[in-house]
């Protein structure tokens, strides 16, 4: 809750630069229309061209990793689900798999299929969100609105299955908490078909619309070697031709049973990313249809004791944005000893900084957000008081008083 001194300082710097040189320093963030979340990038410009980018993250750091060390295993599941608001399921899935790896239990096959269905629905929703936002950043509001309207379809399905649009709370250790509702197969298959049609139409738009092509083609170029060196993950690795997909390389859930297409492109520009994500969406929709029709019978969950055996385990999953990584160390108690979370955005941030260099400022939103950044899950934090083990909240009055103290110190003294 500290006050960031960075911003006023930069103001002075930028005013000075404007006076004495042709270089211009543009603060991009912490609050900026192109960013969904507060992060700060110092852009040093020559005219419209970017010379250097200096990142500053951590504005929404919540200390989740610290908090995890004081809470029981099951409660952490719900906390890590809230690492991210978009790929919430895959976080709980990855954490769950890391913990399951420490136990002796085997996940039931039906639960694996349900996990796959939800994870792929989440991917569809995340990719549609990104495609729409890309339209928004390129100044193509119509695409944005259409795509987000169609995104409701998959959100409605998720809500019907899990009971919530965003935080599904579907995962439990060794299984899932809710079964698929009765008689949903036809509806899911039909909706998926509709989504595939829409995705094909959007692909046609981005392939033919001149203004959109001009904004996205040959923007955000990256070479394969650089991507490999910077350890790019997910779509940012696949759009330069690297075959990096955890679903294929290290299958988890039911990915070894459900056939799917892996999409790899070689053009390495934002247009290729758009095509890649729309193709992946189609692949995901087909996977969901297949999984729903081939859903095996059986139990969905194994109940396990609240104490997890000692040991350490690292797992990775393919989130919509790329590989997410959990490392769990257990001392054999009711709480984990250490949980490490690595979200795809942190892995792809060096890539974004690399491809920003040499672009014009008009491309900043497009290029920076090409990695589909989710800064909220890159920084992790919560107010937690270890002594009483209760969340800490401010009452309205305290909050108001804090605001007054902060902005009007002279008034607070009275």
């Amino acid at each position, binding site marked *: 809750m500290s006050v960031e001194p960075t911003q006023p300082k930069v103001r002075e710097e930028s005013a000075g630069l404007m006076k004495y040189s042709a270089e211009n320093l543009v603060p991009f963030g912490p609050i900026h229309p192109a960013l969904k979340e507060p992060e700060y990038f110092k852009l040093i410009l020559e005219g419209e061209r970017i010379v250097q980018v200096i990142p500053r993250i951590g504005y929404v750091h919540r200390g989740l990793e610290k908090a995890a060390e004081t809470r029981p295993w099951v409660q952490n599941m719900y906390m890590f689900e809230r690492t991210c608001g978009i790929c919430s399921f895959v976080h709980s899935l990855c954490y769950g798999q890391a913990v399951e790896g420490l136990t002796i239990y085997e996940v039931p096959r039906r639960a694996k299929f349900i996990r796959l269905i939800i994870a792929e629905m989440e991917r569809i929703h995340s990719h549609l969100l990104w495609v729409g936002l890309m339209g928004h950043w390129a100044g193509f509001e119509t695409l944005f609105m259409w795509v987000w309207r169609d995104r409701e379809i998959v959100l409605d399905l998720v809500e019907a299955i899990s009971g919530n649009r965003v935080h599904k709370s579907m995962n439990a250790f060794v299984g899932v908490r*809710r079964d698929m509702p009765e008689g949903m197969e036809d509806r899911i298959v039909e909706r998926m078909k509709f989504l595939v049609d829409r995705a094909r139409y959007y692909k046609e738009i981005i392939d033919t*619309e001149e203004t959109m092509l001009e904004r996205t083609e040959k923007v955000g170029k990256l070479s394969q070697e650089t991507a490999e060196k910077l350890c790019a993950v997910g779509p940012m690795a696949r759009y330069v031709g690297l075959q990096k997909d955890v679903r294929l390389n290290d299958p988890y859930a039911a990915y070894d049973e459900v056939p799917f297409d892996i999409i790899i492109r070689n053009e390495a520009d934002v247009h290729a990313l758009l095509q890649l994500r729309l193709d992946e969406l189609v692949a995901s929709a087909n996977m969901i249809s297949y999984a729903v029709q081939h859903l095996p019978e059986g139990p969905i969950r194994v109940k396990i004791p609240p104490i997890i055996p000692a040991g350490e385990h690292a797992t990775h999953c393919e989130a919509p944005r790329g590989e997410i990584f959990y490392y769990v160390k257990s001392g054999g108690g009711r709480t984990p000893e250490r949980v490490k979370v690595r979200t795809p955005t942190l892995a792809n941030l060096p890539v974004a900084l690399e491809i920003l260099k040499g672009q014009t400022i008009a491309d900043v939103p497009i290029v920076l957000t090409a990695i589909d950044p989710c800064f909220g899950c890159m920084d992790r934090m919560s107010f937690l008081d270890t002594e009483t083990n209760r969340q800490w909240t401010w009452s309205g009055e305290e909050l108001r008083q804090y605001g007054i103290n902060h902005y009007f110190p002279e008034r607070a003294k009275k």
Partner: protein
Amino acid sequence: MPRRKTGAAIPEMFRTLIEKPGTQVYPYEKVNLPQRFRGKLDIDPAKCTGCQVCAMVCPASVITMVDFGTRKVGDRVLPVKRPVFELATCIFCGECVDNCAFNALEMTKQFELATPHKEDLVMKKALAR
């Protein structure tokens, strides 16, 4: 490579113009909630035995157990506890509902919980005698 053209979206735009808009006019219109929707917690005080399982599993520390008199089992006098819910911190995961062995808890479809008074969100229903 498909043909490049300016205004590729225009035909679809006119189709959308005459279609019904996708917006749900939420506060003016009711929204359709699915069967499994997880809304505000509710408790059936008659079924609650005060076993404290819900308070233990809650990830958001919503539930605190408060003293609610005593009861006699044979010769011994045991304290009885009842849950108090601070719904302002509830994350609607439904873990307490799943773990309640007596089906005393349920999640209603009520989701409009905004209130100017924080006290409104403290549910003391189980304390009513």
